[in-house]
């Protein structure tokens, strides 16, 4: 059973590290927002894996709090952020 936890930990750590690249390098703020959502989801997966591994239930409250806070944060950023470019919208070509 311990090998399962080791594999899950390595996968989740790799996922968080790879997502961090997009969070730092994303060309627009929306890309960073998507990457941040992914990072929070990976973190919640990691906390759930920790709860399953250690049978420690004190972290489950943090899990719920993280779900709610990440929702409020993402909606706030999507609503109140400043657009990246102020160039006017160009008409799309019809197909």
């Amino acid at each position, binding site marked *: *059973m311990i090998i*399962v*936890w080791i*594999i*899950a930990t390595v*996968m*989740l750590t*790799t*996922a*968080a590290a*790879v*997502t961090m*690249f*997009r969070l730092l390098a994303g060309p*627009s703020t*929306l*890309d960073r*927002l*998507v*990457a941040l*959502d*992914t990072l929070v*989801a*990976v973190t*919640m*997966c990691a906390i*759930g*894996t920790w*709860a*399953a591994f250690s*049978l420690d*239930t*004190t972290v*489950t*409250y943090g*899990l*719920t709090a993280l*779900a*709610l806070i990440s*929702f409020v944060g*993402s*909606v706030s950023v*999507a*609503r109140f952020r400043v*657009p*990246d*470019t*102020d160039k*006017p*919208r*160009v*008409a*799309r*070509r*019809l*197909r």
Partner: protein
Amino acid sequence: MSALDVVTAVLVLGGSTLALTAAIGVVRFPDTLTRMHAATKPQVLGLLLVLAGAAIRLRGNADVGMVILTGLFTLITAPVVANRVGQLAYREQNIRDDLLTRDEMLEFAEEREPGTNGQD
């Protein structure tokens, strides 16, 4: 290693695999909409798999309710964020037209005054 342990292992490993594939997709995909498509996997399905595994491991404990509540909150809030971000990405054209097979918002975009960028 009982049968429930095997089920827990499969669920947790499935959730971790989805998280890893989503991370690779977020980095590799070309525009915001496709990155959102990749990012949705651990947000809903991966997280629910891991939480199901945790709930099976923690069975009988009173705090399993918080785990179920987390899954419910995620299911409710993920579409709202996806809607906002997708609409903003479309309006600011952080998308590649050649990757779209169909653009159903085009007719609504034509009706609006050109130059309106951002919120309503």
